[in-house]
């Protein structure tokens, strides 16, 4: 380590060398960190100062699932070795101490009892404090090489010579100050996880496992009187890959039956994407967003005869999981005179909307002229013959069929919004009826000019 390449080549004859690729290293490390979420939902990858070559796993709450810290370390070591890695592991009460032990400890895996952090790191070099290059060289110049030499030094001279980072790192390693970890995926509020004795392969088995996890998760949710809005199911493959799926619910729920059904519907939709060659060996279920869980009033005109808002939310969830996001929508009027912008398709409003939402201004601006029941995805060009250039159409050809106009209403002039590009033209809308009784909504795009006749478009259909 630290040799020049030419020196190294002279020492080892068959040395292979590659350019460093920090981005790929980082990616591989993150993938491994995701895999490590099978041990705990909180996994934080080391930053640059820490070497960017490992990660912290918060095992406080999950070590007992593996039979204690020693068993967990053994399990982790074995699995990492099967991936062809040579891990150095340490468990300690503080992130700093565990980093120091993993980097500079004598053994490949070490366990530091709570409260013994100080004695554990005392004999290590000062590099084990995760300091910046500047702080490390300054300490070396001062002749301070071991942690034991700096640990009891008066703080004031250090504070004036070093930046605040140095004392903070020291305190964090000793547990005098807490160290926030930045997890690779935001830590869930509630979670449940399980390991399988044998890898599972089929979607049915995944569903059974998810059902067990849901039972456990929902009892946690019930204890706190909350319901989940967003769930994440993570499945850990034997070969180190992680598959995860997120479910958004229309309304907070803590009904394991319902959520299991949603997971089933989602797996059905994803059919194939969850195929695995080697099987899944562990699963974790996280509740990412929770809400106070209480019965709600629905706005969809449900009376006492109708079912509750919960059953509506349940139906919408089932539809959405099977049909995909955006399949279930409600249409709302929007503030615009341009017809295609005068509506927004949004999620179904389950809660009673406050009446202010539909402001008086908006109410006033709703179009009073008839609007078509069906609006075409985009206006379609039509060939129009009009008696006078600015008059209503007399005949038009649309989709290859000639229509003889017998009655026309209009024009209703809709001008583009003033902040739009100047290229946008005014539209004159006509409601026309042909000789067969079919009703169309046509518009003339722009004004009549001698050299370029304006275009006509069919924009909607009246019943």
């Amino acid at each position, binding site marked *: 380590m630290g040799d020049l390449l030419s020196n190294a080549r002279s020492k080892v004859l068959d040395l292979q060398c590659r350019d460093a690729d920090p981005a790929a290293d980082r990616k591989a490390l993150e993938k491994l960190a995701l895999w490590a979420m099978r041990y705990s939902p909180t996994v934080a990858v080391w930053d640059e100062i820490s070497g960017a070559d490992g990660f912290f796993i918060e095992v406080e709450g999950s070590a007992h699932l593996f039979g204690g810290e020693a068993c967990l370390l053994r399990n982790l070591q074995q699995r990492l070795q099967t991936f062809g890695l040579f891990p150095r592991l340490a468990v300690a009460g503080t992130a700093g101490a565990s980093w120091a032990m993993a980097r500079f400890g004598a053994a490949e895996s070490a366990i530091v009892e709570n409260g013994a952090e100080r004695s554990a790191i005392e004999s290590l070099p000062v590099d084990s404090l995760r300091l910046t290059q500047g702080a490390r060289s300054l300490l070396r110049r001062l002749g301070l090489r071991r942690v034991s030499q700096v640990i009891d030094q008066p703080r004031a001279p250090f504070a004036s010579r070093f930046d605040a980072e140095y004392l903070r790192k020291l305190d964090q390693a000793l547990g005098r100050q807490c160290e926030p970890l930045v997890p690779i995926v935001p830590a869930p509020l509630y979670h449940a996880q399980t390991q399988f004795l044998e890898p599972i392969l089929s979607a049915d088995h995944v569903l059974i496992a998810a059902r067990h996890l849901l039972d456990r998760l929902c009892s946690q949710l019930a204890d706190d009187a909350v319901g989940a809005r967003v769930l994440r199911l993570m499945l850990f493959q034997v070969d180190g890959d992680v598959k995860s799926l997120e479910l958004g619910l229309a309304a907070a729920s803590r009904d394991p039956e319902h959520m299991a059904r949603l997971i089933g519907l989602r797996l059905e939709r994803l059919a194939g994407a969850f195929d695995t060659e080697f099987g899944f060996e562990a699963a974790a279920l996280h509740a990412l967003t929770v809400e106070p869980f209480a019965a709600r009033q629905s*706005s*969809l*005109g*449900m*009376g006492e*005869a*109708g*079912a509750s808002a919960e*059953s*509506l939310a*349940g*139906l*919408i969830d*089932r*539809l959405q999981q*099977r*049909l*995909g996001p955006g*399949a*279930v*929508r*409600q*249409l*709302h*009027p929007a503030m615009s005179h341009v*017809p295609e912008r*005068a*509506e927004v*398709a949004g999620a*179904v*409003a389950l809660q009673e*909307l406050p009446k202010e939402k539909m402001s008086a201004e908006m109410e006033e601006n*709703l*179009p009073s002229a*008839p*609007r*078509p*029941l*069906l*609006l*075409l*995805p985009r206006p379609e060009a039509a060939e129009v013959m009009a008696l006078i250039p600015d008059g209503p159409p007399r005949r038009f050809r649309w989709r290859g*069929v000639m229509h003889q106009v*017998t*009655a026309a*209403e209009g024009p209703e002039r809709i001008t583009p919004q003033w902040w739009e590009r100047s290229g946008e033209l005014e539209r004159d809308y006509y*409601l026309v*009826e042909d*000789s*067969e*009784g*079919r*009703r169309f909504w046509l518009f003339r795009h722009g004004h009549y000019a001698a050299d370029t006749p304006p275009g006509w478009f069919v924009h*909607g*259909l*009246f*019943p």
Partner: protein
Amino acid sequence: MRPVLYEVCRSVGRLSSSPPPAVPGSGQNRLAALREAVARIERRGDHSKATILPFGLPELARHLPGGGLATGMLHEVMAASYQDRPSAFGFAFALAASALQSRKGPAFFVSTQHASREFGRPYVHGLRHLGIDPARFVLIQTAKNNDALWALEETLRAEVRPAIVVGALDRQLDLTESRRLNLASSAGSVLLVLLCLAGGQGTNAAGTRWRIGAASSSKDRFGALADWRWHTTLERSRNGRSGHWLLEWTHVAHSLRMAEGVADRTPYAGQASRRAG
């Protein structure tokens, strides 16, 4: 179908051999009693109480058992021709508007993306114009017909009890599929209207089948377009009669009515009065 037919034969046989006291001698009453008996047999095994969405039109009520559209069965709406599809949409949504007026619960519209690509999808201001409150209208769009069928069944069987479920498919249903929908709608006692955009003959499982064609709308005294009209053919009506009318959608009352006293009487109107008479 066979057990029902068998039951009908048996009960008709019983009635003819020993007429119950409820059936007086007059032919009309006897016919009505027989119809009632058939309806009773057909409803057997159906635990939920079917309710009726009335049209409020006596001319139509005479052709429909119960005087309106019954819940718990499939009602098909078809377009008279390809060009008449928007009118068929309009009739189905007019039914939805009436259902929302008289019933609680939301309205669900399930359609395939293909069905709404050709003639567009419902527009919020158009719905409002027709008298449908957008806040009670849920739009479900699926990629495939099979997904739409699944969504229809799921909606019908849910505890939600919608006021009406309208489906739009671009494929002819086979007998099994339509019977499944029939069963699902009777399980929840929900009003189900299916727009069959593919044309064809429709299925035997349908309770009623309507064929809709466009008709020139009525004009007000200034010659402007007033109320929309549709040539409405009731092709099939289980336990009822078929018929043909020129119906008109009144924008003021948001309801259907007979087109009457019109200057431009179409030949259809005469035919309707003859048949109804």
